[in-house]
């Protein structure tokens, strides 16, 4: 899919977290996390449509079945709702399933289990049961994925009590957040973005966890705060680079976890910069943009020097054709333009 890849590769991105570790790909980092988890905890399972097929879930599950066996790494029927419930039931009885989906769109088939069951049992039975499971999916974009194969649904889940949602933006975090998610005793959704899959980054070899619920500052700046997660951080960082060349210093805050949200990292940055732009890979209406924007108005109001800005998808389904896609998806120039608007406001 060269059209896509051309676009993806044109995104210049500074290596994050230079330090201990080797340069490896995002996919490799996920594969390593799964390997460590399977290796160190016999209760970990990896399941999902095609996790053992030649394309191996973008490569993230490559080799796992050979190494850990058919029992622990397995393909599933096309029954998203049941397999989500099966994962919850297994989790309630001592296993730690990692249920992987090619696309978040398919998770919508399982909302009854994901929303009304898995995250509520622990509360409903007064703490008798825990439901340590991971639901993993990679947001599609481009190459004509279209309206039914590119939905970013994380914003829909912000109001679901008992659920945690992480969205890594670097290979380092992809490994560390996935390990944290697998070891967490709650249902955790891990939403990846396809455009991150081939990025390289520095990844420590040892097992480590990136704490769930804590954001990180990716770039310091005094003029405004750009907040986001996952691929939005890549776009935000590019925009920040554009802005820097114009003398505007943007701080880039990577939420890493969107539920529970690290409110203080956002509010502290806002305190310094006074301006907030929220960027998300999903629709601008509702979702992360709305939540973080409202948070600023609610708890950071005294620091706000300008209106809150949001950059996300317009209120339309994703078109399939690549020309329409280019109008549809926000990019660094558009983010930078929104930031300039806030600076003028």
């Amino acid at each position: 899919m060269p059209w896509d890849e051309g676009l993806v590769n044109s995104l210049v991105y500074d290596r994050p977290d230079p330090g201990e570790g080797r340069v490896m790909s995002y996919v490799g980092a996920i594969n390593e996390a799964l390997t460590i988890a399977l290796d160190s905890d016999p209760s970990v399972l990896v399941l999902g449509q095609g996790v053992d097929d030649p394309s191996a879930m973008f490569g993230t599950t490559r080799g796992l079945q050979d190494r850990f066996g058919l029992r622990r790494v397995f393909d599933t029927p096309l029954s998203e709702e049941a397999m989500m419930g099966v994962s919850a039931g297994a989790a309630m009885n001592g296993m730690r399933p990692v249920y992987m989906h090619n696309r978040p769109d398919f998770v919508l088939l399982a909302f009854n289990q994901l929303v009304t069951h898995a995250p509520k049992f622990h509360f409903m039975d007064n703490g008798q049961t825990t439901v340590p499971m991971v639901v993993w999916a990679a947001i599609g974009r481009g190459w004509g994925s279209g309206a039914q194969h590119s939905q970013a649904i994380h914003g829909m889940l912000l109001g679901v009590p008992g659920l945690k949602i992480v969205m890594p933006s670097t290979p380092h975090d992809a490994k560390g957040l996935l390990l944290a998610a697998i070891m967490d005793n709650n249902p955790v959704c891990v939403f990846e973005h396809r455009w991150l899959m081939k990025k390289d980054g520095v990844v420590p070899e040892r097992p480590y966890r990136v704490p769930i619920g804590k954001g990180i500052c990716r770039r310091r700046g005094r003029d405004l705060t750009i907040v986001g997660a996952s691929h939005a951080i890549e776009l935000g960082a590019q925009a920040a680079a554009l802005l820097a060349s114009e003398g505007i210093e943007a701080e880039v805050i990577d939420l890493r976890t969107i539920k529970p949200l690290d409110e203080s990292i956002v509010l502290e940055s806002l305190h310094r910069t006074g301006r907030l732009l929220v960027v998300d890979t999903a629709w601008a209406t509702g979702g992360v943009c709305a939540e973080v924007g409202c948070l600023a108005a609610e708890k950071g109001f005294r620091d706000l020097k300008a209106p809150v800005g949001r950059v996300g998808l317009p209120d339309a389904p994703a078109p399939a054709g690549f020309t329409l896609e280019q109008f549809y998806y926000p990019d660094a120039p558009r983010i930078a333009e929104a930031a300039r608007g806030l600076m003028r406001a």
Partner: protein
Amino acid sequence: MADRPIRYRYAGKAAQGFQRFAASKPPEFLIGLYRSMLRIRRIEEAIERRYREDQMKTPIHLVIGQEGTAVGCCAALRHADLLYTSHRTHGGYLAKGGDLRAMLCEMHCRVNGCVGSRGGSMHLVDKRVGMAGTSAIVGGAVPIATGAALAAQMKGEDRVVVTLIGDATTEEGVTSESLNFAALRGLPIVFFCENNFYSVQSPLDVRQPPRSIRAWAESHGMAACTVDGVNVLAVREATSAAVARARAGEGPTFIEAEVYRFRAHGGAGDDSHTGYRAVAEREAWEAVCPIAIFGGYLTSAGLLGDAAVAEMEGRIADEIDEAFAFALASPYPTEADLLRHVYAE
């Protein structure tokens, strides 16, 4: 208003059906089953009577008329086996060895209810007795029970899972998905369908074409049978066979038992007069009350006398009075309880 015609008739042998199964069983065992059914009946009646006093602020779904399935089914289980049910929890909970006090406390919204007043009547869960999970969403517990069976299989535990479902539950797609997965994996699970011909006030024939639920289940590639649901011994026998199959690693079984609920779908009292089912239909089934016919059989076989029944009734009444008193004297949860167990540690 003239009564509507009878739609669903009892097709079993009533009291004539016991001899076949009773022969080889010790009297205490048979009397135990009778006592267990009687106890559930009296508990349900007490709940029903007192429901009108408004102390139990919870939706109830009585099993009066369906004691034969709950008791017969659970009599085939061991303590370590797991039961999952839907909204209609009382029979399963009690038959699985549940704690009456904990149940009544739950129904009275007390902090020492089996789930601390978080679940109410539809969500009785008690891991101490293998009442492993309930869902008020029809079909919601089915894949979860399937996942529990997967966990048992993977961990090599000598544990069978049973899920009690209704006729309408077979209309939920997730049930088909779960049967497929259970059959595919040869899971140690029994899907026990109490076909009481109604879903709330909707009769079976406006929801399903004329076809056999058993055959439908069987077509998913698993063993399936029908059993007379008012015959506690037949139910126990069929379940034992299914459980033995599961324990031997021979996979899942689906059991369809025709039964009848003598009361409304929910709440206290019958509602046949509202016209959705014939009063005569209910009466015809009441004539084959699972407790009365089994009691009649035991009496005619010389295993049960008036004095023994009177003693049983007395003990049960005392237990019920005591448990209600206990519940009514128990404390309510406080505001501090509200936010506990949203997330597990």
